[in-house]
C-alpha cells in the first residue's frame, strides 16, 4: 500500500497558488520533501494532516481520505511543525504527556510513553524544567517527542533541523534516521538543506511552485559522475597546472582540483598521486564526485560560484 | 526624520482592524446623542451633555483610548522587536519617546475630541451657552495628552504597562479616589474634571481640583512621564532573544 497518494492536488489562497495539480505516490520509508521557500511544502503537509482543505484534487494518507477522515488520519500520524510550537511555561514532561492524552492515550500510559519517548530523543533530567529555558536543540527534541509519543505510523517533520548548529543538526538527523530505521516509522521530512536529505532519506520528492519536479530514490538521482575531486591543503593551482601539463582535463576550485576521468581507469589515479607527490602537497581527499542534489536543482551558472 | 517617526507610529496605531474598532467606540456617544434627540427631550439637554462627557467620554472613552494607544506606541515595538529599527539609527532617544507620546496623544484626541464636539452640537443644537463645548474640548485635549504620555512613559518601564494602566484607571481612579479625598492629586481624571470645570460656568460641572491646580498637576505628570521614558529608553538593553 502506498503511504501517501495524491491526485491533482491544488490549493489556492486568494492571491497565491500554493499547490498546483500535485500528483504523488509515496512508498514507506524515510522520504525527503524538498523545495525552495514557498514551494508548497508546508501546505502539502497541512493538507495531508486534514488541517487544510484542498481547493481540488484528492489526498490519501495511510489509505484514508485526508479531507473526510482527517480525524482518523491524525490518530495515526505525528506532526512536528517547522515553527516554534511549545508553551514556554510548561515542562517538557507535562507537555508531552498532555499531547499523548490529546491523541487518546490513557493517563497512566501517557506518562509512561512520555518518559520513554523523551528518553529516546535524549532528554533526561532537564525534562522537568520549563521549556522556555531550553536551547533550540532541546526544543527540537521536545517537538519530535510530542510527534512520536502516540506511536504513529507516519511522521511529518517540517524542517526538523531549522536553527540548529552543526552538532545539533547531526544529532537530530541521527535521531530521524533511528526513528525511521529502528522504530520502523515512516517519515516525510522537509528541508531546504539538501545535504541533510541526502544523509538520511531514501526517497525524495521535489516540489517547486506547487508542482512536482522530481520524485524517486535518492541513490538513483545522485548517480556518480565521471569527475575526480582532489583536495590538497595548498597550492591547488600548481597541481592543476601540472596535471594539465600531463594531459588531463582539469579545473581548480579553491583547494580542490577537479579532474575529468572518463572510463575511470587506474591510470588517472596514478597520474594524480604522482603529481601530488612531485609537488610535495598534503593530500586530503581523492574521490569520485557524486552529483549533489544541490546541483540537480540549481541553474548551472550558480553551482560554480561556491568556492571560498 | 521626525515626520517619519510620526508616520510609522501612526500607521502602527491606526492600522487595520484596530482602527475600525476604535472608530466604532468613538461613534457610540454620537449615536446615543442622536437617539436622545430622536426621543424628543430637550429640557435636560445640558444635564445629558454633562453626563455623557463626564460619565462616558472622560471616564471610559478617554482612558481606554489612551491605554490602547499609549501602551502600544512604544510597547508593541518593544514586544515585537521592531524597536531595534528605530534604535539602530542616528536619532536621539528623546526624539523617539516624544514622537511616540505625540502620536499616542493625537490618536487619543482623534478618538475623543471630534466625537465630543459633534455630540455637543447635536445635543444642544449648536454650541450652547456657558462654553460647555470649550470645556469639553480643551479638557479632552489635555486629558489625551496627560493619559497618553503617562502610559507611554509607563511602557518604557514595564512590559505589563497595560494591566497596570487598567488597574490605575478602573481601580485607583474609579474607586479609591472616590473614597479618599486626598488621592485626587494623583488622578488624571480629576485633572480633566478640574480643567473642564474652570472653563465653563455650567453649574452641572463640578470638580475637586480647581483649574490652575489641575493644569500644574497635568504639566508635572507629562514632564515626569517624558523624563522617565527617555531615561529608560536610553538604558534600554536588547539581549539575546532566543
Amino acid at each position, binding site marked *: 500500500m502506498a503511504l501517501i497518494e495524491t491526485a491533482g492536488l491544488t490549493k489556492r489562497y486568494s492571491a497565491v497558488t500554493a499547490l498546483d495539480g500535485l500528483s504523488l505516490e509515496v512508498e514507506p520509508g524515510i522520504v525527503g520533501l524538498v523545495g*525552495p*521557500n514557498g514551494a508548497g511544502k508546508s501546505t502539502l503537509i497541512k493538507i495531508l494532516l486534514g488541517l487544510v482543505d484542498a481547493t481540488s484534487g484528492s489526498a490519501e494518507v495511510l489509505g484514508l481520505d485526508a479531507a473526510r477522515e482527517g480525524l482518523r488520519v491524525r490518530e495515526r500520524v505525528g506532526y512536528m511543525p517547522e515553527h516554534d510550537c511549545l508553551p514556554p511555561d510548561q515542562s517538557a514532561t507535562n507537555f508531552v504527556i498532555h499531547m499523548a492524552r490529546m491523541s487518546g492515550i490513557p493517563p497512566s500510559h501517557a506518562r509512561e510513553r512520555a518518559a520513554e519517548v523523551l528518553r529516546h530523543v535524549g532528554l533526561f533530567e532537564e525534562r522537568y524544567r520549563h521549556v522556555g529555558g531550553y*536551547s*533550540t*536543540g532541546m526544543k527540537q527534541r521536545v517537538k519530535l517527542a510530542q510527534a512520536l509519543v502516540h506511536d504513529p505510523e507516519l511522521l511529518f517533520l517540517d524542517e526538523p533541523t531549522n*536553527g*540548529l*548548529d*552543526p*552538532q*545539533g543538526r547531526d544529532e537530530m538527523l541521527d535521531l530521524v534516521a533511528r526513528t525511521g530505521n529502528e522504530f520502523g516509522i515512516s517519515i516525510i521530512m522537509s528541508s*531546504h538543506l539538501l545535504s541533510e536529505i541526502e544523509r538520511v532519506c531514501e526517497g525524495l520528492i521535489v516540489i517547486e511552485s506547487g508542482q512536482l519536479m522530481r520524485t524517486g530514490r535518492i541513490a538513483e538521482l545522485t548517480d556518480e559522475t565521471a569527475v575526480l575531486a582532489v583536495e590538497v*591543503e*595548498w597550492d591547488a593551482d600548481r597541481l592543476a597546472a601540472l596535471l594539465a601539463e600531463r594531459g588531463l582535463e582539469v579545473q581548480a576550485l579553491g583547494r580542490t582540483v577537479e579532474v575529468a576521468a572518463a572510463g575511470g581507469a*587506474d591510470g588517472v*589515479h*596514478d597520474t594524480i*598521486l*604522482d603529481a*601530488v*607527490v612531485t609537488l*610535495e*602537497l*598534503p*593530500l*586530503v*581527499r*581523492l*574521490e*569520485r564526485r557524486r552529483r549533489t542534489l*544541490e546541483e540537480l536543482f540549481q541553474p548551472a551558472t550558480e553551482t560554480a*560560484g*561556491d568556492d*571560498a | *526624520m521626525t*515626520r*517619519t517617526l510620526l508616520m*510609522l507610529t501612526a*500607521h*502602527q496605531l491606526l*492600522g*487595520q482592524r484596530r482602527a475600525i474598532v476604535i472608530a466604532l467606540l468613538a461613534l457610540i456617544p454620537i449615536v446615543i446623542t442622536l437617539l436622545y434627540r430622536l426621543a424628543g427631550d430637550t429640557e435636560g439637554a445640558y444635564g445629558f451633555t454633562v453626563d455623557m462627557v463626564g460619565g462616558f467620554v472622560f471616564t471610559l472613552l478617554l482612558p481606554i483610548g489612551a491605554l490602547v494607544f499609549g501602551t502600544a506606541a512604544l510597547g508593541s515595538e518593544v514586544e515585537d*522587536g*521592531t524597536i*531595534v*529599527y*528605530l*534604535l*539602530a*539609527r*542616528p*536619532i536621539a532617544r528623546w526624539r523617539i519617546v516624544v514622537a511616540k507620546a505625540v502620536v499616542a496623544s493625537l490618536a487619543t484626541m482623534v478618538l475623543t475630541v471630534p466625537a465630543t464636539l459633534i455630540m455637543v452640537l447635536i445635543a444642544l443644537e449648536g454650541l450652547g451657552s456657558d462654553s460647555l463645548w470649550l470645556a469639553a474640548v480643551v479638557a479632552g485635549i489635555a486629558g489625551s495628552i496627560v493619559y497618553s504620555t503617562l502610559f507611554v512613559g509607563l511602557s518604557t518601564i514595564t512590559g505589563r504597562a497595560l494591566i497596570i494602566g487598567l488597574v490605575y484607571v478602573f481601580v485607583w481612579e474609579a474607586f479609591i479616589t472616590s473614597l479618599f479625598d486626598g488621592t485626587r492629586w494623583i488622578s488624571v481624571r480629576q485633572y480633566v474634571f478640574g480643567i473642564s470645570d474652570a472653563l465653563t460656568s455650567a453649574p452641572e460641572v463640578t470638580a475637586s481640583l480647581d483649574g490652575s491646580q489641575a493644569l500644574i498637576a497635568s504639566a508635572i505628570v507629562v514632564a515626569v512621564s517624558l523624563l522617565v521614558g527617555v531615561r529608560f529608553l*536610553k*538604558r534600554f*538593553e*536588547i*539581549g*539575546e*532573544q*532566543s
Partner: protein
Amino acid sequence: MATEAATNAAIEVRNVSRWYGDVVAVNDISFSVGPGITGLLGPNGAGKSTLLHMISGFLRPSAGAVEVLGEPSWRNTEIFRRVGLVPEREAIYPFLGARDFALASARLHGLADPHEAARRAVALVELEDAQDRAMGGYSKGMRQRAKIAAALVHDPDVLILDEPFNGTDPRQRLQLMEMLRRRAAEGRTILFSSHILEEVERLAENVLVVVNGRLAASGDFRQIRHLMTDRPHTFELRSSDNRALAAALVGLPHVAAIEISDGRMDVRTSDFGAFTAAIGRAVRDSGVTLRELRPADESLESVFSYLVGS
C-alpha cells in the same frame, strides 16, 4: 569613506565580558575586525548575539570595552551614521512594503535623497518584485532581505548581520552572499554571525569561533586548521590492494589504527597534517593504486566540533 575605514580596524573588542546574573554569556573576548567579511561562528547559545548586541551598542559590556569606528559603542547612536545592523529577530513592520521600509530607514538617517537610497537598497537585495506588497505576507527569506535592504540604505561602511541567512533557501543565500562579497570587495567591513559552518566557510575570509562565551579560534579557516594539525582524524580509503596498502601505512608513525572491511579501509591518525603530508609518498612507494581517499567526516565540520568539544 571606505578607504579611511580601511586604515584601522572598524570594530575593536577588548577583554569584553557580559553576564546576566550568574550566567556568563560572553567571557573575556578580544578581537578586532577590519575590512572584508568576517564570520562569527558558534553553536546556539554560544554568545554570538550578545556580542553583536554589545558591538551595536544595545548592551552594556559588564567588563571591557567595545569600540566601533574608534568610538565606544554603548548607547552611541551616532555610530549608526556609518553602521548598518540586521537584527536576528524576524520582526518587521507588517504593514509596510520593503520599499517603504527602506524609505523610512533612509528618512530616519536624514539622507538627502531617501527615495533613491531606498530604490538602490531594494535593488541590492533583488526584492523589487515584491517591494510594494506588505511585508506581513512575506516569506522568511523575503523578510530577511527586506531587513538587509533597510540596513544598507545609508550605504554603511560597517555592516553587522545577526544570522542573516536564517530562513533563506539555497538560491536566496547564494544571491545574498554574492551581494555581500561585492560590498566587501569595495573595502567595507562586514561582520555576520551564523551557526552553520557551511555558510561561514563559503563567505567569510576571517572567522571568529565563539564557544561557551569564549573566543575559541580566530583567523583564516586554513590557518586555524594548520594550527590544529595534531588533532586526531579518520580517513576512509579504497585502493587496488587494501592489504598491501595497509602494510605500507602501518609503518607511518602517526597512524594509530587501521581497519579493513569489505573493500574499504579506515585509517585513524593522531596527526592530520603529518598524515596528509605523508600519504602520497607512502602510497606511491607501495605501488598500489589509490582509488579513493576521504576524510571520514567533513573536514571543516570536524575543525568546528574539535573546537566546540575542547
